[in-house]
């Protein structure tokens, strides 16, 4: 095994039914995908299931990778579609409609007073309160380090919409911070 074997080379080996290559690809990407999916679905068990479904699809359809994007972007796209498919089956809110960006989770899930002591905990509360579409884009940009073009590809929206959606997600985040007693001076 080449130590610095690229993800694309691994896909080539996976196409030839090399399960060792899939193991390596899994090792490289499973944690990031899982965390993205937990953010997206709010459900750890479902996130875990979707990670497996993603790699199963990679195993079955590695040869369908077009090569026009990075392998990780491709994996995020598959994982997102898996999650949306599961959520639809569970009759939860569709994420691919713009209106979904406006619907927020208003329920209190944790002790807000205690969380005020810790800005990171407040961040958790605020992210949890964002709409699924806003939660998703915050994670893709700030944690997964995707570019505008990569987010556009994963989410399936134009690049300009990526920028405005991120802007509005950030504003909603600041609004939630304010409601939790932290005024960030914006918007």
């Amino acid at each position, binding site marked *: 095994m080449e130590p610095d074997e690229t993800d694309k080379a691994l896909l080539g080996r996976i196409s030839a039914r090399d*399960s060792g290559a899939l193991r390596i690809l899994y*090792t490289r990407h*499973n944690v990031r995908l899982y*965390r993205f999916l937990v953010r997206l679905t709010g459900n750890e068990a479902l996130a*875990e299931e979707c990670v*497996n479904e993603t790699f199963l699809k990679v195993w079955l359809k590695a040869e369908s990778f077009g090569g026009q994007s990075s392998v990780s972007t491709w994996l995020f796209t598959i994982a997102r579609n898996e999650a949306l498919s599961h959520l639809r089956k569970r009759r939860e809110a569709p994420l691919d409609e713009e209106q979904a960006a406006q619907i927020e989770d208003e329920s209190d899930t944790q002790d807000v007073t205690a969380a005020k002591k810790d800005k990171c905990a407040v961040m958790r509360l605020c992210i949890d309160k964002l709409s699924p579409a806003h939660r998703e884009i915050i994670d893709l940009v*700030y944690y997964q*380090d995707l570019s*505008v073009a990569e987010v556009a590809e994963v989410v399936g929206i134009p690049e300009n919409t990526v920028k405005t959606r991120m*802007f509005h997600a950030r504003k909603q985040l600041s609004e939630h911070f304010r409601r939790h007693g932290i005024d960030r001076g914006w918007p």
Partner: protein
Amino acid sequence: MTDEVNDIDSRIPDEAELLLPWYVSGRISPDDKRKVESWLTENPDASAHLARASEEMDLTFADAEALGQPTRQSFDALMARIEPKTAKSVASGWIDRLWAGLSPRYALAGIAALFLLVLAQGAIIGLLTSSSSGPAFQVAGAETAVGPQQKALVAFVPGVSLAEITSALDDLRLRIIDGPAPGGIYTIAAPDTDAGKAALASLSANAALVTFFSESD
């Protein structure tokens, strides 16, 4: 579909303002980067905007790092679905074939041979890491550790490369401080903090990398 028409503020933001998160993450084109830098210079409120975006990224990152990772059982289930034989271990396939050809009489000798192989992997890792100057992957005797530590005993999946191990430990900010002991066991150190504890838990759950994990005093 509409585009965020019901937003809390109808003001149309500057293009550069929209690009701030990518400026902070570094995932931005040179042209857009110049656009943002020009906006930062001209806008008196720009530094506060930049600081907010930077803080958001830091907090999002810290929060995401606490979200855990898939379990070992989940990985085993995936491998079982892909190829039943690989459920045990992809890397051990050749060992299975060797085993199939051994009579019980030679099994003990086989175990001894396997033990030597694990030791050899350990020796190679030890040799390579002893010349590494990276702060996140060091062997015993490298006197750079500061502050209280928590430790764990770990054995890696046979066949996993040094690059994969190094990358995983670097990501988790863990260090090898001793080993290999008999059986290919390494002592891994992490800062004695919640983050260190979480990093060890992450390593423990990484079924593709770790075959044995035990907390150590």
